[in-house]
């Protein structure tokens, strides 16, 4: 911890807090998809900024880990930068923006496009861990519903989408069933990312700071997105390719480029896009350094 802050324990949390979180994590891995309550601590940043994910990361991170933090796929947004800096200062660990180099990845709302390996752990930041919360506000009831696998309301919610709109319109935080048992919120990742959770080689950990819940999906575990036989689960698709790297297999963000209705679609995963461009892939659009000057009418 040469360049770290003095006066703090390694990775900010005290050892007793880490043991409490670690015991919760081990039970979470042993009961895939079940939300384990934990005594979440106040963290030096507000709820909604990844306090759950940070506590999980702090309990797991080792001095030799290489940490990557992404926010909606990007390594360079405020949330990602500040969390990366938090751990480089309090734990003195190496950080990276490259998915391939990371051993620990904390994420807000995306799974990297590059498949994760057994040598990696991914930590999700979770705002609302309870997938049944919008149908049943009482925690005492949702606990019973999970215990009894009373999941009819979730199917009804998806069915109502089909009845009203002709298709399931849930595009993020799309509910999944883990190992054929519990229904789980995958956190607000786009449903495009749901298939990546199934049989993933890496351990997946989830931390919800405000709601004080930890849950997990062990590696090589079945994760199915809920659907119907006649309305099978589908991921989002785009007509466009990434304007920068030409990728047709990644999750694309829509960027408004001017006030004439100009727009671009580019990879949400900045590392994936950068790697492809470094390898010589190019998109259809020659992105100008600056928007073209507006001509007077």
């Amino acid at each position, binding site marked *: 911890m040469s360049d770290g802050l003095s006066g703090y*324990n*390694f*990775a900010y949390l005290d*050892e*007793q807090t*880490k*043991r*409490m979180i*670690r*015991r*919760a*994590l*081990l*039970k*979470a*891995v*042993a*009961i*895939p998809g*079940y939300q*384990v*309550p934990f005594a979440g601590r106040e963290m030096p940043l507000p709820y909604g900024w990844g306090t759950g994910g940070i506590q999980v990361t702090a*309990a*797991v*991170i*080792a*001095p030799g880990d290489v940490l990557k933090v992404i926010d909606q796929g990007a390594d360079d947004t405020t949330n990602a930068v500040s969390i990366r800096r938090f751990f480089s200062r309090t734990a003195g660990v190496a950080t990276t923006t490259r998915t391939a180099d990371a051993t620990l990845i904390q994420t807000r709302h995306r799974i990297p496009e590059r498949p994760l390996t*057994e040598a990696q752990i991914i930590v999700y930041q979770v705002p609302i861990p309870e997938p049944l919360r919008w149908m049943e506000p009482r925690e005492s009831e949702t*606990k*019973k519903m*999970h*215990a*009894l696998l009373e999941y009819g309301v979730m199917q009804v919610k998806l069915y109502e989408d089909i009845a009203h709109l002709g298709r399931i319109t849930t595009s993020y935080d799309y509910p999944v069933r883990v*190992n054929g*048992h*519990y229904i789980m919120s995958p956190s607000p990742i786009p449903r495009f990312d749901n298939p990546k959770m199934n049989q993933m*080689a890496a*351990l997946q950990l989830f931390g919800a700071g405000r709601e004080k819940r930890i849950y997990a999906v*062990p*590696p*090589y*575990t*079945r994760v199915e997105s809920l659907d119907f036989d006649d309305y099978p689960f589908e991921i989002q698709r785009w007509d466009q390719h990434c304007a920068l790297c030409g990728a047709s297999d990644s999750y694309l963000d829509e960027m408004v480029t001017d006030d004439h209705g100009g727009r671009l679609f580019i990879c949400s995963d900045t590392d994936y896009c950068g790697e492809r461009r470094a390898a010589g892939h190019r998109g259809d659009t020659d992105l100008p350094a600056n928007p073209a000057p507006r001509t007077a009418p």
Partner: protein
Amino acid sequence: MTADIDALRPGFENPAPDANAVFRTVLTGFSYPGRILALPIAIAAPPRLNATAAAVLLALADLDAPVWLTADVDTAPLRSWLQFHCGCPLTALREEAVFAVANPDAFGAVDGLAEFAPGRAESPETSTTVIVQVADLRADGAVRLSGPGIAAPRSLAAPPLSPAFWAVLRDNHARFPQGIDVILAAPDRMVCLPRTTLTEG
């Protein structure tokens, strides 16, 4: 009870990194059940505990995690060691234990394994993690493991555990989401078996 300080064995040499290294090994163990993992640190174990069992308790037991000890290992020096380093309550009731240390009996079974806390239907995490001390762990045994975390079925030998032990663990698996989780602790290595792992043979 006052601890005899002179007789106390030391705990972790570097508490934060040592506890982290042991925890990460256990986390990897529960993530990839059946994988034989080396104990990552050296430790002077107290009497009747092997180094792996001692390290797991040092890393994870504290005042919120009551520990149950089988009669074989329940000695005054060990009680002093646990209370000094972990500050954990010691319980005589299996169903109260967060962690338990058990030894196989002369028949290779673990007496009373089914009496540890299985957790409740609405809170299955309130179950006991049982540390079973074994002589050795090898990947060439007759026991077949499958379930989450196991890409291709694994084999395991854990002498002196006998089929009677594995039969109890199979019943435990059938109770999912309730059930105990098991850490098989050989002197220098461990295998973790969460309740999701199906054991056959």
